[in-house]
């Protein structure tokens, strides 16, 4: 079974630039999560989708972050414009129905300079 795929693995941008991350969940998984993991901290949920609908985006900084999950499969997370404090690892995860184990991708390490 293929795992959760994320790209790119690394990205370096200057502040005020924009960046996008892509996630392909495990086939058939209805729930998709985006987490932000700042160095030395645990992952923090940014947004959660159930199929193509948003379930929870209460911690998403909506003035600069956006996410979509078209057709209930792949998802993209965008930051525009980026700030220095956005430097982190962005993890995507998926689960079959949200009450089961969440499987994680390898993450994208973003460095904003």
């Amino acid at each position, binding site marked *: 079974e293929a795992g959760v795929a994320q790209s790119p693995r690394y990205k370096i941008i200057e502040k005020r630039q924009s960046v996008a991350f892509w996630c392909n969940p495990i086939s058939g998984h209805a729930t998709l999560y985006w987490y932000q993991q700042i160095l030395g901290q645990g*992952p*923090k949920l940014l947004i959660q989708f159930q199929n193509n609908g948003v379930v929870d985006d209460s911690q998403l900084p909506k003035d600069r972050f956006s996410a979509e999950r078209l057709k209930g499969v792949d998802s993209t997370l965008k930051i525009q414009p980026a700030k220095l404090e956005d430097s982190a690892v962005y993890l995507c995860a998926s*689960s079959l129905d*949200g009450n089961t184990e969440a499987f994680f991708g390898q*993450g994208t390490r973003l460095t904003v300079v």
Partner: protein
Amino acid sequence: AQTVTQSQPEMSVQEAETVTLSCTYDTSENNYYLFWYKQPPSRQMILVIRQEAYKQQNATENRFSVNFQKAAKSFSLKISDSQLGDTAMYFCAFMKPNTDKLIFGTGTRLQVFP
């Protein structure tokens, strides 16, 4: 709101020995799930073990076992016969059913020495 606390930023253990990682949580819910995830340098979070709050029996997965104390809201992870490959960050996480939201602690860095 639920919170998860891991009070040990770093731990070390010698190969073949046993180590216990601590986790406490705060919730007013009666039914929930608890997890331990391992994050090696590759960054991919890997599920180590899962516990349903309604189950009194402690979960066990090979060398990994938990000590779940519901009244004390404590969920510690015991790693027996530690191996070099166990070196990683370990995160405790809480999930309230039907919200599907995983809340993580700050993690414990475990170093296994030969």
